[in-house]
């Protein structure tokens, strides 16, 4: 199946070490930009108690959930440290700063 890429905006819309969210009817995607300007997208829903990960502090390639400080890897979506849990990661394409996310993963993520 061909990947359906959906444009979501420009990399400069996201602050360095920051995140924005993308709203879709089925839920929210958090799009992160690390200090190295790498971009990652994951479900905006902490596996612990559903906290909005897009609101957390971004450090290295991880984010700390604002509700109870779980640390989630942006690369794998897995909780780091002693916590167990995981969120879906969504492929992001970065073409000279123009960002797109992959639709079918997105649908799966939204279920």
């Amino acid at each position, binding site marked *: 199946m061909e990947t359906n890429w959906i444009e*979501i*905006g420009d990399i400069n819309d996201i602050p360095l070490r920051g995140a924005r969210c993308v709203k*879709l009817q*089925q839920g929210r995607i958090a799009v992160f930009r690390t200090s190295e300007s790498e971009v990652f997208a994951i479900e905006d829903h902490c596996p612990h*108690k559903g906290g909005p990960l897009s609101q957390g*502090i971004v450090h290295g390639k991880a984010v700390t959930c604002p509700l109870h400080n779980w640390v989630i890897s942006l690369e794998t979506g897995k909780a780091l440290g002693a916590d167990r849990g995981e969120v879906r990661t969504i492929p992001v394409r970065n073409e000279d700063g123009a960002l797109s996310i992959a639709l079918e993963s997105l649908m799966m993520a939204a279920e």
Partner: protein
Amino acid sequence: MTQKLIIIGNGMAPGRMLEHLLEQAPGLYEVTIFNAEPRVNYDRIMLSPVLSGEKTYEQIVIHGDGWYIEHGITLYKGHKIVSINRDAKTVTSDHGVTESYDKLVIATGSVPFIIPVPGKDLPGVITYRDLDDVQAMLLAAQSREKAIVIGGGLLGLEAAAGLASRGMDVTVLHVMPTLMERQLDPAAGYLLQKAVEERGIKVITKANTKQILGTSKVEGIELDNGTIIPATLVVMAVGIRPNIGLAKEAGLAVNRGIVVDAGMQTSDGDILSLGECAEVGGMVYGLVAPLYEMARIAALHLAGDRRPAFVHSDTPTKLKVTGINLFSLGDFAVGDDREEIVLRDAAAGVYKRLVLKDNRIIGTVLYGETTDGAWFNELKKKATDISEMRETLIFGQAYQGGSPLDPMAAVAALPDDAEICGCNGVCKGKITGAITAKGLTSLDDVRAHTKASASCGSCTGLVEQLMSITLGDVYNPAAVQPMCTCTELGHDDVRRLIKAKSLKTIPAVMQALQWKTSCGCAKCRPALNYYLVCDWPDDYADDYQSRFINERVHANIQKDGTYSVVPRMWGGVTNSGELRAIADVVDKFEIPMVKVTGGQRIDLLGIEKEDLPAVWADLGKAGFVSGQAYAKGLRTVKTCVGSDWCRFGTQDSTGLGIRIEKFMWGSWTPAKLKLAVSGCPRNCAEATCKDIGVICVDSGFEIHFAGAAGLDIKGTEVLGLVKTADEALHHIVALTQMYREQGRYLERIYKWAKRIGLDEIRRQIIDDAEKRQAYYDRFVFSQRFAQVDPWSERVSGKDKHEFRPMATIGYSEAAE
């Protein structure tokens, strides 16, 4: 029979020579030293830290008076030798002392080069060579006026950084196009210039000084191109010349320096020379490592061993300016027979360049990231063929042969003969050997026994790692709790170093304090951001990405991802207009919950993030500002109705509470700060369980602090009684500032007070009026930058991106 040894000069080289000699052949010589400076032997490399205030003179003394007495050495302080009579084998000082010698060591060092321009002799023109120069600079810096440093080399830049950190407005003039061109290539020189300029130091390259202006003292400098730069202090740091006058007059062979053979012997068989004045193999030296090698050789010869010979080796250069890391070694000029490997990381300010010839490193320039300097030095020294690891060489040792990235492992993997301390030429094996053989357990012990990290100190980290590897868990460098896993330093050390090293950005802190992670974590970043906001209110640009979400969006996140909004109600007092405005906002935005808080104000809960700016806009129209109910900062000042209404009220508690809140709102503190003012000891505002509370009494205002009514329950302590509302405000503000400056991030005031001690706090805030005033003034200064209503800023468009989704996908037009 004991022979007489006379040493002219008491710098680091002869000092080191004596240490070796006393070890090799104790009692062989009766030693006399003539020192033109009126001092003992001190560490000249550390003059820059003395200038910048990171060290004191006492801390850089190598041999105190006791050392000379203990070893039976006669030291003539402030005696300059004016003549050597080689026939009679005597020397004579300017004070008329004549002593005879069997062996003489000339260690007269160097003199600073003074550029021969008009005005060079004006008062206010100084060099940078010894402690007297540093003291002259410190004196001049008190004026906080303009200074010019001529010379953009190692010494000049250290002087400039020191003067700048002492508050002077500094300009560096450098004759070449880039800084430190003898040690750095242009690319690294450029990065260095940027870093220097970031410290507020102006740099003018290609600057030729025409003359120094002034009549009775320095007033400025005129350049060749006519530019005039005003200054009250001019520091000449353009280079040094071997000090050979005395040797020349005595008829010894001299060239650029005093000519010696590889055994440090001059043209006279009974006279040796070493240090910056000596020329060996056609070279003169200014860095400490080769000078110490001369000291070792000279000591062996004096002890009777004629075999050891001085061999030239390149010495790495490091700049001792806090926060600027650079490393330069060997030859880095380009050539047809040479290749180079370059790595740049602009964002991180890193530049690395290796110059290769026949697959061997011959030169290295590292800027920004210098930890692999020792390893490259090792490869160069051993002329290791690097073709096998060429692809990954520039990334450093940790990337070779799949060995781990752990810095401990990298140190563990170094061979025993790898040089750890460049200043003193101490290799790894000597350090680990001494630790084991002598049972050393502290860094000071290791320094005392091996000299490793005892000079410039830049290898301290490596030495500590060696101690950890050798001693295992027995060695505990930091008994303090580290801030987080990104650092070994505790909160107090970090705060102290931020001040001492004038670190003014989070990357600068992480760089200078050697953070183990690239950009910290959710624990250290908010803490660092607070420390920087507190310490540099005017300079520091608040890093919102290092703030917890509540402080980033100025509302309190709730469990479902919505926010709550609490407008300020000064002293808990409101009116019909405000209440009506709140009611309208609740209706308009369908706010599901309205709740009265414990801090005498109103909480609006369940607001979507996207709606926050619109809610604030409506509240703002009614005159509301943020209540900072989300902040590690001033929250509320609760009051009772006091003497205005209450039949028991002794003072206007409501008025005082409002006054305090209006004075202190917007200030950031280590943890949240809640206040209360009660109008009488019945204490209806519950002031005695607050961070700071006031109990009004007939005779004045009793100030309380360090209460708690959360995780812990604790009544307040009494700070003291003051007579007027003005004094009450003054004391409360000063106490808050003391807590702001000393508290650890997230440490409530009662925990801080327990740590510092109530008596100490009372001593500083109640007893010491001067200190109290200084705290007060610093708080007031900081408020100039802090008292901006964050809500109205965001209503005006600041941080727009925070409150909107980046994209909305799959909604039909109508749904929007």
